[in-house]
């Protein structure tokens, strides 16, 4: 076993060589770019220029590293999960523990960078969209830390199923605006945030939560999130003396996946596997698998795969996971898919919840339902690759916010009155059927993953 370099300081990520994409105008092959009203171009140019200066500024890099270390708690550890891996065909499974970050997910990596950028361009107010609430909580946190005014747009539907995160944002001093237009979910929250931004762009910066949207967001958010993979690659090399056979991550917009993939893109022998939310199954039409079940078009400022009908209208997505319930995906994922460097597979609500229960019961870790999609992918891929394969899974967030949804799914909520969350959880995946008793989850009832 050879030992390699220790975990690098996080600031190194921003100054490392980046992939050769996007080009200077934000294109990843045919994807990305800027499909926005002219009124926003000046603000996007301002952000691009300020960011390119900031990412090589030693003063910023020292501050960013300090926040990662002292505030977020980086580097996040790697945890091997052997009892969980018993269900993965003999594969060994390592988790990158982004769930242990301050605020409970990988989202903090990005918002700290963008909040520092906001201060650098002299704006006093930040706005953000949020689906599950993780990005909203992270943005509210960074705004509180840095003394910025903060407004969060959240679909009314999501404010109900993620009420805990709404309370957290309000405790942190943010204004949470429920969005009642369209499908009342993440895509509509993004529309509202863009409308706010175009109206208040002189005073306000838009802290975008994922690797989608117009240039420079996909590249900038990737840079802020690539610390996940930079750390993990060094950590796996140090403890195993080899690279993993595959790296797995859930994909909604795709920021945690790009975050862990980027360091491994040049490692040709490492498979990169993105797990999309399959909802009731891609064949049912009720899913959020933009790459597996969609095709290229323009949404929210960039060209990428998306769910759309024959008229080019965005189709409402469906997933038990609010954080993956988005009909688009970041343009870099579309590009990685088209060039064959990454593969994308759907995971149904049922498969994700089985993996969720399995990790709870075998390892004492309650994952975010988003991250449970990546765990379900590991169960299937481990069985394909067989014994001695080594899988690295990005555990992008923790499941505290999902306790109500999971309780309803597993029929554990009889002691409380039915809530909208219960109905949503049942409606999201099961029709009138309650979920399986949680006790079954450890009895190797995990499906074979044919859909994977």
């Amino acid at each position: 076993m050879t030992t390699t370099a220790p975990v690098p300081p996080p600031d190194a990520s921003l100054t490392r060589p980046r992939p050769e994409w996007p080009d200077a105008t934000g294109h990843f092959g045919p994807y990305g770019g800027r499909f926005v009203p002219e009124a926003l171009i000046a603000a996007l140019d301002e952000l691009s220029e300020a960011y390119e200066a900031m990412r090589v500024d030693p003063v910023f890099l020292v501050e960013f590293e300090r926040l990662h270390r002292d505030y977020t708690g980086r580097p996040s550890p790697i945890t091997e999960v052997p009892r969980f891996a018993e269900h993965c065909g003999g594969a060994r499974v390592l988790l990158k523990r982004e769930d242990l970050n301050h605020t409970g997910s990988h989202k903090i990596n990005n918002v700290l960078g963008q909040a520092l950028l906001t201060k650098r361009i002299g704006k006093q107010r930040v706005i953000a969209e949020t689906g599950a609430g993780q990005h909203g909580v992270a943005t509210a946190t960074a705004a509180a830390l840095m003394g910025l005014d903060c407004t969060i747009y959240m679909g009314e539907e999501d404010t109900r199923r993620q009420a805990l995160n709404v309370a957290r944002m309000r405790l942190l001093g943010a204004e949470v605006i429920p969005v009642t237009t369209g499908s009342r979910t993440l895509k509509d929250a993004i529309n509202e945030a863009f409308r706010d931004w175009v109206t208040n762009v002189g005073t306000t910066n838009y802290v975008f939560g994922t690797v989608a949207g117009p240039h420079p967001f996909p590249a900038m958010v990737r840079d802020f999130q690539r610390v996940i993979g930079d750390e993990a690659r060094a950590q796996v090399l140090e403890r195993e003396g080899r690279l993993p056979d595959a790296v797995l991550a859930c994909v909604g917009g795709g920021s945690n996946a790009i975050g862990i993939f980027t360091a491994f893109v040049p490692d040709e022998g490492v498979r990169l596997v993105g797990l999309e939310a399959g909802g009731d199954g891609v064949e049912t039409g009720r899913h959020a698998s933009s790459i597996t079940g969609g095709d290229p078009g323009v949404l929210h400022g960039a060209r990428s795969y998306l769910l759309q009908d024959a008229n080019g209208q965005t189709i409402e997505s469906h997933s038990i996971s609010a954080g993956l319930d988005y009909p688009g995906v970041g343009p870099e994922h579309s590009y990685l898919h088209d060039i064959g460097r990454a593969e994308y597979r759907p995971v149904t609500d049922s498969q994700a919840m089985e993996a969720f229960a399995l990790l709870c019961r075998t390892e004492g870790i309650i994952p975010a339902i988003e991250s449970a999609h990546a765990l379900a992918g590991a169960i299937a891929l481990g069985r394909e690759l067989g014994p001695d394969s080594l899988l690295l899974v990005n555990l992008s967030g923790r499941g505290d916010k999902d306790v109500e949804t999971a309780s309803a799914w597993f029929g554990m909520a009889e002691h409380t009155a039915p809530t909208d969350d219960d109905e949503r959880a049942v409606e999201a995946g099961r029709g009138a059927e309650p979920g399986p008793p949680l006790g079954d989850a450890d009895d190797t009832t995990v499906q074979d993953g044919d859909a994977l």
Partner: protein
Amino acid sequence: MTVPPSHPTSSQLEERIGAAVAEGRSALIAYLPVGYPDVPTSIEAMVAAVEGGADVVEIGVPYSDPGMDGPTIQEAVDVAVRAGVGMADVLSAVSAVAAAGAVPVVMSYWNPIERYGVDRFAADLAAAGGAGAITPDLVPDEAGPWIAASDAAGLDRVFLVAPSSTDARLAMTLAACRGFVYAASTMGVTGTRATVGGTAQTLVARTREADPDLAVCVGLGVSDGDQAAEVAGFADGVIVGSAYVRQLLDGHGPAGVRALSEDLAAGVRRR
């Protein structure tokens, strides 16, 4: 990007707006979306707008994610999207407006056009008698396929400029336009406003300085004849959207649209 040849001749929009200016007034440009409250009534409303005095009708293509529109237009368009209104309905509206004697120009976010097929859209729009298209979320930087298709079909293409546009972007955008340039009067989304304000006038002046030959039409915020008169004092055309849609949302129907057009048409004549 490659800058196309600057606004060649035979532009329906240029001719119609130019004729209005020659009369010593501004052109009145009415926006209405196809499919609210239903397709036939929306087309009736467009014809009523023409009968009331609109020179040009902006025919709105319904879209699920209208990021540049405020609540009034969102509300109407949402109904049309849910009803499955598509490009075939839009092309019917184009023909109806042309038959009524106004110049039809399509207003569409980019994805419905891309989904329909850019070349197919250009060919079908030209065949239906349309002048061209206004593309609020397509900047010339990303418009290569549309510039090629609109050139091939002889269509006008209208891009937007905003108060935040730099001089360099103004020049680049104007060079890519044919027919007119859409000057967004304020930073924000569509909707009526009490005042349109001085930013619009400044933007129009900057635009004229950059290209004295291209017509400049001002949109965002105009709701009545008095505001139309104010904007007509400095612009070649006055674009009104939300106020028309409001007539339909409030149940006044095509008659309400006709009455508003009459008020606005008088406004653009007393600048």
